[in-house]
């Protein structure tokens, strides 16, 4: 028997077409209750058009301490950004 209530992370899509964004979390025993609690807690002022709830224990996170080594494959690849490139004088719409 499960004794403690689950924690669910709440993601809200503020408008049709936009990405869901993390808003916070709620306590609830099952998924329906989690959705209803999330609605009552995070969308009292029409903040959302769609809500996702995900059990907190199902989320995998990188460690912020070793973020440097974890993210360093991207450090030396400035050529992935448009500002890296030299454009001839007068070139437009590029």
């Amino acid at each position, binding site marked *: 028997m499960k004794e403690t*209530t689950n924690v669910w992370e709440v993601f809200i899509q503020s408008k049709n077409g936009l990405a869901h964004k993390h808003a*916070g*979390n709620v306590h*609830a025993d099952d998924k329906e209750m989690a959705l209803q609690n999330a609605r009552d807690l995070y969308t009292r002022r029409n903040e959302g058009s769609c809500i996702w709830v995900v059990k907190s224990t199902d989320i995998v*996170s990188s460690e912020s301490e070793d973020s440097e080594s974890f993210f360093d494959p991207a450090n030396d690849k400035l050529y992935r950004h448009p500002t890296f490139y030299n454009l001839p004088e007068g070139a437009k719409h590029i």
Partner: protein
Amino acid sequence: MIKFALIKLLLMDDKIFQEKIDKDRKIEPKDWMPEKYRSHLIRQISQHAHSEIIGMQPEGQWISRAPSLRSKMILLAKVQDEAGHGLYLYSACETLGISRDQLISQLHSGAAKYSSIFNYPTLSWADMGAIGWLVDGAAIVNQVSLQRTSYGPYSRGMIKICKEESFHQRQGYEIMAELAKGTKEQKDMAQDALNRFWWPSIMMFGPHDADSPRSGNAMKWKIKRQTNDELRQSFIDKTVGQAEVIGLKIPDPDLKWNEKRGHYDFGEIDWEEFWNVVNGNGPCNKERLDHHINAHQEGEWVREAARAYANKQIKN
């Protein structure tokens, strides 16, 4: 040798931590933090959360007695917001490794406190005005400052709360303004509410800086960004003019503008009353806590049923 290396490592952690704070970087739940930073945060955030929750009681008592449908809907929405604030803050507190159950039992045992302002009774409809205007007003000054607190989850909670608070103060001030321009009885009622809530409101910022021993660390770690006295002064400076606009008188004969300081001077606070209420002897301490304990116990069957239902779904 090993012990020595361990101490050195801890000192290093401490140094890195303080450097982060000094650079205004936020501390996140998984980051290393000194135990005292963690326990200070748990005490402060839980006290803040409990205040939001207990704070629903004095106003909740007036929902069924609101003088119009408009004021009833507004008060209901306001009290509901406070429940939300409590939950945001419990969430932030839980990231520090304490459970919701532990937090609630600390409240019930008296190990955790809540703001003393909620241990005063609400005797008339004007008190709804005074609470929104002064109590939420004082809370806003504190919370705006805490948006810049160093602990990430607390800071994000404050930002969300501040967005919702602005209507709370306005609805209270509107009630006061309406009463103040009404019949003589109505104006007297508003003045009486201001008289009773003024001093407790400015006590909400806590003891003077010189008598507030924990402030040092809290400022060094940027848990607090402004001292009790700075926050109190800024609340008083904002509020005096608002009282004048609606023709009510702040009950402090020593209140006057100090040109040189650029602030209002004000009278001596009755610290004996403050400590008396903090230590459990205010007019409503027992009533507030008993009510919370009863509601929590009476709700146990609902939590039990929800758990049983969830377990049944897992099995099927």
